[in-house]
């Protein structure tokens, strides 16, 4: 058949030997332990992605997705499909602090959007953006199951409750001083949660 239209051709998917594997020794051990929990490798996909999110500094790059697929012997696309399905896996670089503001019903009634707007103003960024200094990323989330203390915001694995603009300012000051990457820390917490005590590399 002639007349094949030549539009830009697609790049080829990477071959296994072309992958940029970055999992640390610790990560590999964790994954090995995780795999013993399930009947097949596919089932370990979600915790494996948490490991990757930690190993790749807080977000899943294409390399991270490919590495997980390689290590679990699944197709790249399948892993990417799962990674993009869940919002807690970050697909773009994020700041050290992910400010997740609840705007679901109760928080909305109690001023969740005011908090959000205040943050936008203070940080000079819009939803989904990251401050240029790589400190903060702003996100909107659904109910955090803390309606009694609305409005609520989650940063890493900590909840900040009954927020007011003043409290937010103080918090931002506080956070700026810290040097912990809470997104990475959260990812690590997720991983450790999946592992029994004796399976954690530091206990081996």
């Amino acid at each position, binding site marked *: 058949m002639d007349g*094949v239209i030549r539009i830009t051709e*697609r790049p*080829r*998917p990477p071959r296994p030997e072309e992958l940029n594997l970055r999992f640390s020794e610790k990560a590999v051990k964790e994954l090995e332990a995780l795999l013993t929990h399930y009947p097949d490798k596919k089932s370990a996909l979600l915790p494996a992605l948490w490991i990757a999110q930690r190993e790749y500094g807080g977000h899943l790059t294409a390399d991270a*997705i490919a590495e997980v697929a390689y290590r679990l012997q699944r*197709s790249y696309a399948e892993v990417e*499909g799962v990674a*993009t*399905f869940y919002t807690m896996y970050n697909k773009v670089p994020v700041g050290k602090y992910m400010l997740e503001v609840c705007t679901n019903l109760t928080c909305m009634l109690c001023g969740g959007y005011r908090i959000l707007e205040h943050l936008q103003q203070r940080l000079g960024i819009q939803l989904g953006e990251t401050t240029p200094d790589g400190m903060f990323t702003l996100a909107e989330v659904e109910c955090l199951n803390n309606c009694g203390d609305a409005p609520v915001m989650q940063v890493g694995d900590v909840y900040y409750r009954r927020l007011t603009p003043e409290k937010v300012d103080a918090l931002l000051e506080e956070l700026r001083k810290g040097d912990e990457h809470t997104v990475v820390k959260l990812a690590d917490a997720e991983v450790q949660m999946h592992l029994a005590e004796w399976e954690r590399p530091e206990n081996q």
Partner: protein
Amino acid sequence: MPKPKNVEPNLVTIEINGIPLQVPEGELLVEAAKRLDIDIPIFCYHKYMKPVGMCRMCLVEVGTKMPDGTVRKMPKPQASCTLPCTEGLVVWTETEQLVKDRRAVLEFLLINHPLDCPICDRGGECPLQNNTQFYGPSTSRYIEIKRHLPKAFPLSKYVALDLERCIQCGRCVRFTEEVSGDAQLAFLFRGAQMQPHTFQLTEFTSRFSGNVIEICPVGALTSRTYRFRARPWDIVTQKTICSMCPNGCNLYLDSRSGKMVRINARENPAVNETWTCDKGKFEQSYMHAPNRLTQPMVRRGKEWEPIRWSDAYELLLSKVSEAQGAVAGIAGHRLSNEALYMFQKLLRGAFQTNHIDHRLTRYQGDLQAQVSAKLGKPATANEYRDLEATSLVFVFGSDLVEEQPMVFLRTRKAHRQYGVNAMVASPVPNAVEEFATHSLRYQPGGELALIRGLLNCLLDFLPAERLAEYREAEWLRALVADATPTATQDATGVSADTLLAAARQIAESPSMLILAGEKVWNHPNASEVVEALVTLTQLTGNHLREEGGLNLMPLGTNEQGARDMGVLPSHLPGYRSVADEDTRTAFESAWGVSLPTTEGLSTDGIYQACLSGEVRLLYLAGANPVVDHYDPTLAERALRATDFVVVQDVLMTESAQYADLLLPACPFTESEGTYTNWERRVQRFWRAHEPLGESKPDWVIFADLWLKALGKVPPFNAREVMQEITRLVPPYANCTYDQLGDQGARAL
């Protein structure tokens, strides 16, 4: 559990729209309704994939019959594509509720659909158009702005993706996951953002990518080779069989103004179900190649001079009589059974030679004597369904996905759906390894040592009763005594542990089906490898099982037909020896000629004879040995040395450069005939186009020559050739064109 062959289903009685009906228990309702020709609209359901109930288009109302005869209706409509039929199921497919539901489903789908039907390749044959026509709202209430996404995004050189048109049915994603197995497409994101895509928008490299175009119920996945080349209503569709490999996929050939514009799968549950490979779908275009031969030509020095057919025939026949029996013929693998039969008939009956062959592989031994006589089964014992019924498929020395794409798909399905185990022995990475339990990666040339190693282990693992049945266990034990696992490890590079595990699996499998491929045919000691495979089959008793057995897979499209039609130096059609007097008499009286009595030369023998001058006229019919022969230089030297070379082919091939006389033949699209696939299923193809220029169907050329040489009336059309075959070749007794119909029949 493997899917047993020939089991009677358990029937249950259901009722659809007041019509009582018996169906197999567990059949999906959407399929059951087809039995009554009741239309249930669908999008995501596909007969050959697992139902997922994603689109909700197939809703029906259901109830159950109570013992007192009343019907208890379910409060909500159910998806008929996920509902298995059970006793007493009562179904309504045309209620008022359903009319509303379907309209609502379609209204939702159309909100995001661009409705660019006038420039959509799917227009006119689009399930979304059709369902909207019959079940959808007649007007749109949606006045907001539609979503916008990339259009005509090229996923590969064959497939383009239009995300605006996608209705998220998941068929394409499920195809790559369930059927082709590469899982190259996945849904990214979720909810309204959900879209099928490849990883990071890389190329869609699947060998079966074209299928997603056919199964997409909208124009989201379209063919880049067919794009904007025709509209469905100005296409002429013809039924055909793929000419690219011996798997025998049933196809539709779509043409516009006498030119093929696309190829689609034609359903045949026994063969390709409803799939094709990309080679068959996109790379099958040689019928329109610029180097088609359209005129008989004779060589005058360096130039070709066109001549008339009658002069060509005369020249050929005079050269044949000059050669005085020093004539040989090699036929190609794309010739139809009718052509192959007439070819050997012509050479034997009119040219009085048995120097006839079709094999271009290193193996040119007597397959019949080596395999069929010993196993009581032909060299290919099985059919597609056996792949699902057996417990173990052993792929031996075959790049299955390349050599036998459809067999690969079915093996993979058997593994996924019915838990059939797969095992593969290959010197290079092999696609079967993805789902194989054991992979025996041996060093090139290690085939024989590997089988001997397996035999050695098997003698220890097989139960005593089996060995007793085999009878020659002691003889075999002595024969393979040196092939211990460690010795085999040294000889093949396959670790002793893997070998033992593989042997154990073979011993424990209730049945095994072997698919042997190119590495066997081209092995320097191919005869010995074949012998060893025969022994493996006998030792495990698989020649006695319907779903087990040895299959020396043909590599060429109609290579099986060539074997069956006696395009062999030693056998007349139906594998009957040329030396056998009774056989000869039967053919002699049917053809009205006397036949040569001694076995002829095989392909390599013919080349040697060409070089030594013992063969002075070589007739190549559809064969291109200069490229396809395992030793191209030998073929080339032979062609150069021969006094008179006749090349009859569709294209100006590399071998045609050495010809003295060129006869233009039609491709399968321009003639009628049958192909025999690897499972010995004989299938018809129909003429789709008129012959180009002066080209003629191969069998017609042979028939013309038969008439000119002997003055005897040849068959009048392809149907008559097949009738003659059915009379003279016992396995083909039930293969008249009427009996073959659309779906073919196995020549057993």
